[in-house]
């Protein structure tokens, strides 16, 4: 089964398979790119597009409902790739011929130029043409060299954002596991500094969305032939089922481990998000409550907000890091079921793979255990010491933490 797209070519609609469309689009685009360097190149590309439309029409007349990739391959074989088509750029011989032919015709047409002037003009024309072409060639070589490899995120082999596999592709390492391990180790040793770096890379580095990107990602040459080959091979892989967008170069077990590690690395970020939302709501509620209490507005805010932020500060100061960690796990323990409920309600998501589900469940159970453990610990230590830990003056603080434990026990 393949997804089908309807395209409009010069006023006629054709149903075309998605991969076939991709191939056709590439083909026409490469024609446009190729001929745009020439005089009236747009027109040539347009003519070719007309020819494609005509051939598609013939297929339609024959009663073929949906255009498959094989048909497009056939059409491309018939019309030929840009490099095959262009007699201007292919080999020297026809070029010279046509050049002299054209100037001969010009001479015949005007018939007024003197012979020597004509040959000089011709020579100059040839010289300029040669020079222009060699400069063009040099430029293209340089461009090819520098554009050989691009850093892209790899959509076909990703655990999170495809950053690591993208880097692996960029560096030419065949197995992204090494980059992933390095990332995780760095994340652990750099006190999670790598997390924001990963996120920034995720945002900044583009995803290799088109086959062209995927060729560049692997440092292969991008020309119409390789591009077509790439589209065809991707479509074949897709047909065989080996080309799964979320496929991995790792076994399921390894993926589960990675999934768990990633989940816990992401945890602080998720928790921070929850915390910011919580703080925002708290501040909002406080200020809303204060508006009704206008007379003592300024005095009241300064004290209560000050208290609030000192509470926040004491949490972040991490005197009691154990509770802070417990809070993170608690948030995660809530996050997982909420995530699954949201997914269940919202239809149209791609179903989770079994490895994803297993890694979620394992990490969730772990988080649950840790949360419960921390809750008991916190409960006991609170019973033991009556004055609270952080601020001898503020009595509310233990109650401030209370809700978090309760959340954890949910």
């Amino acid at each position, binding site marked *: 089964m393949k997804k089908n797209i309807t395209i409009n070519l010069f006023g006629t609609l054709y149903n075309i398979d998605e991969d076939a469309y991709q191939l056709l689009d590439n083909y026409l685009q490469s024609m446009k790119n190729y001929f745009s360097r020439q005089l009236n190149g747009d027109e040539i590309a347009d*003519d070719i597009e*007309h020819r494609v439309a005509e051939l598609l029409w013939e297929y339609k007349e024959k009663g073929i409902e949906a255009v498959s990739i094989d048909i497009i391959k056939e059409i491309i074989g018939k019309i*030929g790739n840009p490099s*095959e088509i262009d007699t201007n750029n292919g080999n020297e011989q026809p070029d010279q011929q046509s050049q002299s032919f054209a100037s001969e*015709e010009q001479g015949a047409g005007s018939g007024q130029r003197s012979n020597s002037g004509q040959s000089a003009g011709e020579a100059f024309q040839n010289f300029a043409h040669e020079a222009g072409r060699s400069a063009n060639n040099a430029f293209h070589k340089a461009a090819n060299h520098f554009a050989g490899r691009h850093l892209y995120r790899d959509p076909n082999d990703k655990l999170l954002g495809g950053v690591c596999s993208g880097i692996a592709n960029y560096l030419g390492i065949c197995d992204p596991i090494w980059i992933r391990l390095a990332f995780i180790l760095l994340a652990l040793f750099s006190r999670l500094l790598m997390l924001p770096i990963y996120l920034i890379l995720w945002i900044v580095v583009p995803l290799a969305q088109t086959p062209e990107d995927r060729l560049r990602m692997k440092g292969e040459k991008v020309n119409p032939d390789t591009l077509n080959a790439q589209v065809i091979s991707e479509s074949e892989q897709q047909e065989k089922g080996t080309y799964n967008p979320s496929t991995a170069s790792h076994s399921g077990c390894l993926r589960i481990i990675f999934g768990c590690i990633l989940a816990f690395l992401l945890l602080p970020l998720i928790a921070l998000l929850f915390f910011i939302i919580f703080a925002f709501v708290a501040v909002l509620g406080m200020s809303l409550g204060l508006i009704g209490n206008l007379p003592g507005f300024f005095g009241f805010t300064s004290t209560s907000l000050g208290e609030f932020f000192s509470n926040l500060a004491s949490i972040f100061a991490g005197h009691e890091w154990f509770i802070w960690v417990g809070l993170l796990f608690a948030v995660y323990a809530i996050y997982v079921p909420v995530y699954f409920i949201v997914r269940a309600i919202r239809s149209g998501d791609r179903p989770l793979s079994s490895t994803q589900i297993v890694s979620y469940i394992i990490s969730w159970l772990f988080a649950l255990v840790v949360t419960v453990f921390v809750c008991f610990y916190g409960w006991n230590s609170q019973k033991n010491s009556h004055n609270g830990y952080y601020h001898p003056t503020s009595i509310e603080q233990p109650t401030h933490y209370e809700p978090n434990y309760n959340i954890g026990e949910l």
Partner: protein
Amino acid sequence: MLEYCILLLLNKRACYANDIISKLKAAEMIVVEGTLYPLLTRLKNDNLLKYEWQESTQGPPRKYYALTTDGEEALRQLDNSWNEIAKTVTILQTKRLEIQ
């Protein structure tokens, strides 16, 4: 060479690309169809050909190419030079045969 063939084909009547392709194929002249389009455009730029759009009952609109007066002139010249070349070649060929 291919230009000459195209001019020859278009001498009799206006054709659109598909006609030209099928005729060239019949004459075993063309390998890939796409070769034709840059040629046609170049000939048009050299003012040897003109074209007009015609709606078609089958498929997209077609470009019908025809020779301009310049094109006819060029074709006559090419005919002459081709005949000369052909003459020379046949003379040389017969000479070679005689030697053998």
